[in-house]
């Protein structure tokens, strides 16, 4: 319907679709302060095709996306749309040309309504970015309704006027997609669209992509998740170190091959967990409940054990993790550590008891991004680093940070550098290092490798194993099933706020775990 370019008449000047690609990227280069982020990247995008722009964090794929979507100009190179050079694209010009981006953070305006988030962009583009225009409310609503219906979201008045920051993550993502297809999209770029989604929501996403494709819209995924690329299919454009290293049909190559191109290393899907040695009883969670989140959760674990907890976004797994860490305390129930009641009422209680918590969203909940690595690491133990007159002992603080950085293999020339200078994987290790300073008895890792590239994952998994071998109890809350299978002794599955199943992880099939995860909701979802 609204995607009329491809569905209807051919675009003017377009004689043969096969001959002229929709978008051609020619030798794009970009540097930031002397660092060459893109060293001449070229590839073409044909209508109705699916592409995966793959690479580890820092390979330049995000920079390339910013250039295509008009957020940043390229230093050199050309972009051609329908065979014609377009020069430097502004965000509005890129949108007008049909390039729509679903950003990793969804880029929704939190204080505006669903209808405005979906429908305003189209009016902005129609006005060529000029703001002195009357708002066409009726048109905005129609645009929003049509686009929301296309992604199976409600189109009721109440939903249209809801602020987007009041909605759950998965709904926000669908709204971001609705916005992308609300106008005449010809290329939809999805920047790591599945990071915040459970497998189910990914399936829905794949359904939407199929429908876009049928209308002749090209879709470009930006990702480093090999599993998803394999299941979606299409063409892979693989980048490493600012260059395109390979372009191929995904179906023709194994995950190992793709992974090798991305990382330059041979990947391993084997279990990290081997020969666990359990000690005494460590943790006993007894009938923990939080209204509207989880109910009656009980389990126990021993020293040196790694327990995985998984579930869909609304299963209560996130809230359970936060309750154990005292971030959002449970209403009722007890948590005992070494037989002592330590049920935390605030994060400081958990820290005192020896519970370290690495949150899911390290950017907003965990790290002080502009602050030095050192300060980020030593923050929980500041009072132990008190020197004369109660003043912070700078040398001990620095030594502690340096030991931690060395121990966790954080790649940085200096602990005085800000945390934001590090890659995602290294940031995550700083966060883990912070909690190791309190010598925790129990470490709760919430999504330990979200937004972390393949090579860094390996390092983090090895660290987790070593900590458990040293006698620490580790809880991993994650929706990355392979991660749990590779690392845990036991895996608990949550649905609708309850622990419904528990598995021994060894020799467990991913398929079995996946079915346990989704069982109750399968019927609803296949209706799509």
């Amino acid at each position, binding site marked *: 319907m609204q995607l009329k370019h491809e569905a209807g008449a051919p675009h003017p000047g377009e004689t043969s679709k096969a001959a002229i690609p929709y978008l051609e990227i020619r030798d794009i280069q970009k540097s930031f302060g002397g660092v060459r982020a893109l060293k001449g990247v070229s590839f073409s995008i044909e209508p109705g095709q699916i592409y995966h722009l793959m690479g580890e964090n820092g390979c330049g794929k995000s920079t390339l996306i910013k250039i295509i979507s008009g957020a940043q100009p390229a230093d050199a190179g050309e972009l051609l749309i329908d065979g014609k050079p377009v020069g430097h694209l502004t965000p509005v010009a890129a949108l007008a040309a049909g390039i729509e981006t679903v950003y990793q953070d969804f880029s929704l*305006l939190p*204080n505006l309504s669903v209808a405005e988030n979906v429908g305003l962009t189209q*009016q902005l583009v129609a006005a060529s*970015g000029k*703001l002195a*225009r009357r708002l066409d409310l009726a048109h905005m609503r129609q645009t929003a309704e049509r686009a929301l219906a296309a992604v199976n979201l409600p189109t009721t008045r109440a939903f249209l006027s809801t602020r987007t920051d009041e909605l759950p993550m998965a709904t926000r993502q669908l709204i971001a997609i609705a916005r992308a297809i609300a106008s005449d999209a010809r290329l939809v770029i999805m920047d790591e669209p599945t990071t915040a989604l459970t497998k189910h*929501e990914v399936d829905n996403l794949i359904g939407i992509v199929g429908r876009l494709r049928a209308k002749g819209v090209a879709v470009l995924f930006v990702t480093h998740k090999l599993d998803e690329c394999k299941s979606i299919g299409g063409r892979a454009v693989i980048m490493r170190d600012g260059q395109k290293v390979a372009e191929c049909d995904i179906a023709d190559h194994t995950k190992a091959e793709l992974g090798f191109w991305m990382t330059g290393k041979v990947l391993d899907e084997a279990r990290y967990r081997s020969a666990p040695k359990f000690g005494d009883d460590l943790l006993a969670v007894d009938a923990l409940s939080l209204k509207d989140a989880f109910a009656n959760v009980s389990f126990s674990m021993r020293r040196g054990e790694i327990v995985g907890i998984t579930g*869909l976004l609304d299963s209560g797994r996130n809230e359970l993790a936060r309750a154990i860490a005292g971030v959002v305390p449970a209403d009722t129930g007890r948590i005992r550590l070494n037989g002592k009641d330590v049920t935390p009422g605030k994060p400081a209680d958990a820290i005192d008891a020896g519970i370290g918590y690495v949150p899911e969203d390290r950017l907003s909940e965990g790290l002080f991004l502009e602050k030095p690595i050192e300060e980020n690491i030593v923050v929980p133990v500041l009072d132990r680093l008190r020197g004369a007159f109660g003043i912070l002992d700078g040398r001990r603080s620095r030594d502690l940070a340096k030991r931690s950085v060395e121990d966790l293999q954080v790649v940085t020339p200096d602990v005085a550098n800000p945390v934001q200078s590090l890659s995602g994987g290294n940031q995550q290790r700083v966060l883990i290092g912070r909690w190791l300073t309190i010598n925790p008895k129990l470490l709760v890792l919430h999504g330990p490798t979200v937004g972390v590239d393949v090579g860094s994952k390996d390092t983090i998994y090895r660290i987790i194993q070593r900590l458990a071998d040293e006698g620490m109890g580790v809880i991993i809350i994650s929706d990355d099933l392979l991660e749990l299978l590779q690392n845990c002794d036991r895996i608990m599955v949550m649905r609708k706020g309850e622990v419904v199943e528990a598995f021994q992880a060894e020799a467990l099939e991913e398929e079995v775990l996946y079915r346990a995860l989704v069982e109750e909701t399968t019927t*609803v*979802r296949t209706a799509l």
Partner: protein
Amino acid sequence: MTDTTFNGATPDGNDKVSLGSAWRWLLRHPPVVTFALIVLVCLVVGTINTDFWQVSNLFDILRASVVRGLFALGVLVVLASGGIDVSFTAIAAFVMYTVTMLVTNLLPGLPMPVILLVAAAGGACFGALNGVLVHALRAPSLIVTIGTQYVICSFLLTFVGTALFMNIPGSMEAFGKVALFTHQSANGSISVLPAFVLVLAVAAVVTWWILERTLIGRAVYAVGGNPGIAERLGYNLRTVHIFVFAYAGLLAGIAGVMHVASNRLANPFDLAGTELEIIAAVVLGGARITGGSGSVIGTLLGVVLITLVSNVLILVGIPSTWQLAIIGVFIVLAGTVFSLRAKR
């Protein structure tokens, strides 16, 4: 998947109106809280002293709300965009004094509409300067406007003058005297609602229209919600920055002239120092200091509440020195209530 994921978002109990859902509704409609405070103050004061229920009091409050209201509408637009402006009183003082002086000395016959136009244009120029500085320097607007406030004030007192104008131009004086409505009470005293309250009404409607019915209005809220995202989506930050400060300056210019017309004198030391009171009124009306929210109706109610407290406490024997304490308590109260909305 929509079914399962969306369930979490819809309010759970639609069948019965519980205390919880009423509370939630209230948090989403902050002007209702402001309105409730106004009613509360009226009831308390009116019960203690029945003299409160007089048309003259209503007229006084409306008259005193005009200058504050014009300022507040400008502050609302700036706050909604995520900025803050404290230079508007200085702009108003400069414009009112300079325009009064120029008209008195050079063009005594200048009609009121032209005076208003000149004041608006002058104010808008100062405001646009604020906007350009905020955008070009990428500096916090609070700091920039503190700077421009001092510079404008100092410039006014150094180069333009410090003397009072007791005889203001005829057209301004006449404009201040036009009555919209005259009321004679039982004891024979006459109270007048001046026509210049209409200026506030027109400004309020125009501001509402800009914020709710134009692209620039939505862009103001978009930038206030998250400037980085707004820029990525193609909203021109420069246009928005310059617009909001220019608009606040424009309203400040008009407010300055209104101040002269209603007081029938131009004092260059007037208005300075009332910035925080105006910002407080806008925040009392439900705008968040961090940007991206606020409404015209809420702002007007906030202004009425502040004016009410400053005008009527004397009726119940509370010394005027206590006004600030009461306003302060209201601000803390409103701030607490509205921040609950953020936590949810």
